[in-house]
């Protein structure tokens, strides 16, 4: 006689609101993460005539618009210098803003899945990031080619780039998660988001450099608020990795903006986890 002992997983469902970050479950669903990410990538340019070419044309047009505009507006610097500076900001900003956008919409767009099947819900915002990253990588290659053509090789500080990009993604993911969770209940988010992103565009050194903003005749508190914006140091750090010089570096503000980033991450995760179990009731 033999006895088989099989391990059978036990699951308990309760009425409590509490849910916690279950990393082992997320890992078990890594296959789903992969297929959801691939879905977003492969349907992106479906039924377009030129398909994948869009991911080259879009950043190129952006670089040209803002690069040329900056040469026209600011005559104090060398045109190539100014052009490259602004286009670096533009391509990184494109990654950051699209990450906020995609993550914010990730829950409402997938509402049909949320209401029909159980899955660790954090997968949805996470998997929406891949599209943005792939678009960015293509844009970055275009930018580096332009850079080498116009100026030469980038500085050795380029090795810090992955850290800066990761840091940027963490912050944008946190912001996006906050918006995504709120939008489950309040679709107002969908309408206000474009304005927020537009304001952030001007309040961050994408087109208007930090040097330019700080020289403006503004009250002191406005300048402080400006420097607390995590995007300021994020974008300047990105430019630093390419040029090797940091625009208005201040260790205090730098530290605070990093603090704000991680605070945002914690707050948004907490908000998400507290509300996660009720998503299907509200969406």
């Amino acid at each position, binding site marked *: 006689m033999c006895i088989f002992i099989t391990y*059978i*997983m*036990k*699951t*308990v*469902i*309760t*009425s409590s*609101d509490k849910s916690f970050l279950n990393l082992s479950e997320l890992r078990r*669903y890594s*296959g*789903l993460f*992969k*297929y*959801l990410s*691939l*879905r977003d990538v*492969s*349907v992106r340019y*479906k*039924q377009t005539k030129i398909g994948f070419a869009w991911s080259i044309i879009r950043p190129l047009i952006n670089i040209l618009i803002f690069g040329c505009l900056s040469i026209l507006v600011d005559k104090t610097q060398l045109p190539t210098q100014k052009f490259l500076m602004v286009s670096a900001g533009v391509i990184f900003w494109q990654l950051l803003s699209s990450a906020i956008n995609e993550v914010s919409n990730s829950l409402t767009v*997938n509402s*049909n*899945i*949320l*209401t*029909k*099947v*159980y*899955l660790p819900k954090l997968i949805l915002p996470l998997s929406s990031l891949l599209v943005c990253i792939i678009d960015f990588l293509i844009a970055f290659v275009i930018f580096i080619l332009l850079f080498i053509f116009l100026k030469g090789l980038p500085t050795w500080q380029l090795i810090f780039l992955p850290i800066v990009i990761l840091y940027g993604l963490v912050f944008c993911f946190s912001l996006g998660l906050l918006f995504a969770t709120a939008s489950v209940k309040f679709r107002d988010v969908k309408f206000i988001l474009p304005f927020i992103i537009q304001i952030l565009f001007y309040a961050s050194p994408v087109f208007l450099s930090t040097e330019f903003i700080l020289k403006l005749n503004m009250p002191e508190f406005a300048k402080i608020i400006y420097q607390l914006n995590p995007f300021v140091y994020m974008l300047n750090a990105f430019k630093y990795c390419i040029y090797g010089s940091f625009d208005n570096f201040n260790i205090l503000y730098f530290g605070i903006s990093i603090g704000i980033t991680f605070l945002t991450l914690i707050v948004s995760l907490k908000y998400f986890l507290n509300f996660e*179990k*009720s998503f*299907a*009731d509200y969406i």
Partner: protein
Amino acid sequence: MSQIAIKVENVSKKYNLLHKQKDQADSLIGSFGGSIKNMFSSKKTSTLNEEFWALQDINFEINKGDRVGIIGRNGAGKSTLLKILSRIVKPSTGSIEYYGRMASLLEVGTGFHGDLSGRENIYLNGSILGMSKHEIDAKFDEIVAFSEVEKFLDTPVKRYSSGMYVRLAFAVAAHLETEILIVDEVLAVGDAAFQKKCIGKMNEISNKEGKTILFVSHSMQSVQKICNTGIFLQKGKIIEQNTIDKIVNRYLQSGDTGQASFDIPLPNEPINGYITKVIIENKQGQILHEIPVGSDWRVRILINVTQPIQHFIVGLGIVSSFDTPIRTSWSLPENISVGNYEIIFDNDDVMLTSGLYKLVIGLSSHVRTFQYIDDLITIIISDAGDAANNNRIINTDSGLILNPMNVTLNKL
């Protein structure tokens, strides 16, 4: 000894219903002002909160390997229960324990993307339902064979016919490797041949692999085919948990299904006679909520006559759910005096197939119709319960009329 697969204790689910009171604002500016006011006022004067308990105090246990049919009319809480069990919504009170992996199929093709090919959708949908890549790889050929879409695997599914789409979607779900499977009404889609195939597959899964299945359907026939035990839900409460045959019969007798007697509203204009009530019953005079397929039934119509009527005729028509008139019968013309009458239409010759039918009734005098009822009375002919054992019927879905013709075989 049987093991417990699912244990549900004191589960309730509450929803808050918001009743918006009629807005006073008639203009765009007025309504805009209203929404601004709502934004800033903490007191919600214009909305009334009402609690609605979709489920109340649900307790049950399900043994491993049981196939449980959950039965109840619309709004009884079946779908809510399945959603709670599959962790899509959380219960308001109570707790649930279950053992093993659980997959739920509340909809065919959850997460299907029209722009992706059949192949890509198999992987996407499979992983949404909780399968790993290895499992999908291993089952891929079986899934494709079951779905019968081999030729179109690399076509975007938005180009599929709806039948192909549903077949592919069900095929993925049917190959889930979980201990517990929750299925909600998904068999309602697709044609009859496909439904049979699905039911066959579900039977195969549950018998061979010893899976625990929870199944919701309005088709008593498929519930009886698939399940061995049942739970009867009514208004969010469990009425009974028992073997499936007992549950189905209880459900049919509960009056929770069809309506058996219809009070006809008084006519708007004064007429000489009018119908007060229509009753569906069997030959013994027992009212029938659902008419078992193949059994005799009759319609009893109560009429109140206020003025003598010359050349009085009552007509009764049966109309199929596709609005096809099936048969019409008339009473013989008579001159009647004031009083209450009943008239009986016996249906003991034609056996109709299961489904919904409409009754149309008209009263006339000298061939002029003065009362006509065409949208009030619906009857259900059901192939569930004891009807399945009726030896007059060979097949319940081979036509509207089940009576066979007289068939003779002669050697020439």
